[in-house]
């Protein structure tokens, strides 16, 4: 049972108070105030009324002022106020509503009217309170759902690697673009040992936090089994059994799992209900890896998955993706589709894994236009160069200009020993001279001794040079316009070295890792 509602009657005439109290006392708990000040005090007390019947004409403080003050106060503004007055002109009523009254009753009072109005307003106020509470609850739920989505997205993005295995024989890059309602995609790329590269891409059914957690579980299981099991079929079989256990949400996941021997090019793979990857050959032909090795994972326990073994040719690129790519839609609800994807892969240099994936993501965004992305989009590319290091040399020097010759002379000897001809030898010496000169001349603000490391790796038909220094962060290849078209008088001296390096080397890359600048140059042999 609800406690009786409290009604405060405010009037300077005790007789009037008595009339109202008598009329209502059976159904409500009645309170009384004989002046405006008393009324304010009662309304602000801990025992505040649920409704106020307020006389207008009172000495000291009239009803309008009482009403105005109550409506200004955060604690009392929601108490419904009904004016009770002998005055019945329109002007007064308007003024009453202006200061915030909810209703107006004129004397003489009809008991029925009074009762029904009081009842109605109490009920309305109660409904308003309930509505407000319901609204707050809905907002809270919405926030909770949004928080859950954010958590899911965080789980998803923190689970997938953003740095990739590095080796002369391979180049890997992958990216995942979550949909607004997380779809549960994942990818992974890691070295199991010095020659085995594990690659996988998966797509969990369902959305939100459950999908993200299931994805995290799947990825973790694959990685842990792959550390001791080199058969993709066996790994998938074990992952399936493990995931089936306690899968109350009936989630499932499609997975493409591959292990590449980076020295032999042998690729062992298992496709569990995932869309077919592509193999892009150097002659720009496209091969679909359409072997199936079992159904989706986590649907049925005790299944035994199969695997295939192929050998990659040098300069092949393996391209894995999830259906978010092909099912991306434009505003007309047409799919991006396999044909468009295949054309993209044929028309672009997929060997440049990062560049081509960045371009593909841009192409998909452009295609989607204003349409919102409904599923996660994941792509992973692995370029297999098959190159191995035939010889290598590392030289370390202190940051003195005179020491540059230790590197160029050391490299000269390395070239003689490893049958590197004069042209690349001279070009690399020039590049080293200019780059290291820059580092020593402009990279250090202190007068301390620093070490600069230069590593040379001779592959079959390429030389890789890695320059590592702890100077202040500086990307030498960033910007810088050359002025090589200018005449002798207009020429500024400076900036030319980098221009030469960029032109003489096949590729120049810079990255900042921890406190080190790392420049990687390549030149064909």
């Amino acid at each position: 049972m609800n406690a009786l509602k409290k009604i405060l009657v405010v009037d300077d005439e005790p007789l009037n108070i008595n009339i109202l109290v008598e009329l209502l006392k059976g159904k409500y708990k009645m309170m009384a105030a004989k002046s405006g000040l008393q009324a304010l005090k009662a309304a602000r007390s801990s025992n505040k009324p649920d409704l106020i019947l307020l006389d207008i004409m009172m000495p000291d403080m009239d009803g309008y002022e009482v009403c105005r003050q109550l409506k200004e106060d955060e604690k009392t503004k929601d108490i419904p106020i009904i004016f009770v007055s002998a005055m019945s002109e329109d002007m007064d009523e308007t003024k009453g509503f202006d200061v915030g009254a909810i209703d107006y009753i004129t004397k003489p009072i009809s008991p029925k009217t009074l009762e029904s109005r009081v009842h109605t307003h109490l009920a309305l106020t109660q409904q308003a309170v309930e509505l407000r509470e319901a609204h707050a609850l809905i907002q809270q739920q919405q926030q909770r759902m949004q928080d859950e989505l954010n958590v899911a997205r965080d789980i998803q993005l923190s689970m997938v690697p953003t740095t990739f295995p590095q080796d002369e024989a391979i180049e890997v890059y992958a990216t995942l673009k979550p949909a607004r309602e997380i779809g549960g995609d994942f990818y992974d790329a890691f070295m199991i040992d010095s020659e085995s590269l594990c690659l996988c891409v998966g797509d969990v059914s369902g959305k939100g936090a459950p999908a993200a957690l299931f994805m995290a579980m799947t990825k973790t299981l694959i990685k842990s089994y792959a550390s001791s099991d080199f058969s993709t079929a066996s790994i998938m079989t074990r992952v399936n059994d493990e995931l089936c256990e306690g899968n109350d949400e009936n989630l499932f996941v499609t997975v493409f799992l591959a292990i590449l021997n980076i020295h032999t090019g042998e690729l062992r793979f298992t496709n569990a209900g995932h869309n077919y990857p592509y193999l892009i050959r150097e002659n720009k032909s496209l091969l679909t890896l359409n072997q199936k090795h079992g159904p989706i994972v986590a649907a049925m326990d005790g299944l035994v998955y199969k695997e295939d073994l192929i050998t990659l040719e040098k300069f092949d690129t393996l391209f894995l993706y999830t259906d978010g790519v092909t099912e991306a839609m434009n505003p007309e609800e047409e799919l991006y589709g396999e044909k468009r994807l295949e054309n993209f892969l044929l028309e672009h240099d997929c060997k440049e894994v990062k560049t081509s994936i960045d371009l593909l993501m841009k192409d998909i965004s452009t295609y989607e236009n204003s349409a919102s992305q409904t599923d996660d989009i994941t792509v992973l590319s692995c370029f297999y160069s098959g190159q191995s290091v035939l010889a290598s040399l590392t030289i370390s020097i202190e940051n003195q200009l005179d020491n540059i010759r230790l590197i160029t002379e050391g490299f000269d000897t390395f070239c003689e020993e490893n049958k590197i001809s004069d042209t690349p030898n001279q070009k690399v010496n020039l590049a080293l001279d200019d780059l290291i000169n820059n580092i020593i001349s402009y990279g250090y603000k202190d007068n301390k001794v620093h070490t600069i490391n230069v590593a040379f790796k001779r592959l079959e038909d390429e030389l890789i040079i890695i320059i590592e220094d702890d100077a202040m962060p500086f990307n030498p290849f960033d910007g810088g316009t050359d002025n090589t078209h200018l005449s002798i008088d207009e020429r500024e001296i400076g900036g030319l070295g980098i221009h030469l390096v960029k032109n003489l080397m096949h590729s120049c890359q810079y990255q900042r890792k921890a406190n080190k600048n790392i420049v990687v140059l390549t030149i064909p042999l």
Partner: protein
Amino acid sequence: MQLTSNEKNEYKVIEFEGSLDTATSPAVEKQINEFIDQGTLKFVFNFEKTKYMSSSGLRVLLATAKKLKGKGELKISNLNEVITEVFDVSGFSTILNVYKTEEEALS
């Protein structure tokens, strides 16, 4: 880097042996400036025995060409394959007088 100079047909012919880079450029520039200060204004730089030339070396050539502009001559000859490429990439082949051989430069 070793510099050898000979007087031929009013020109001072300088042969550069070694590499013209960060380490060697300051001394080379000093030597050339001394020749100019002594009154030599017509040069042929023969790079037949130069292995490579970094931007430090190019700077020396540019500074020399600027000094001689309007009052002397600088001719360049016998560039190897890589230095020729460096000259092309840097635009030096269009702002300096480059000859295939020392004989062509002198004639």
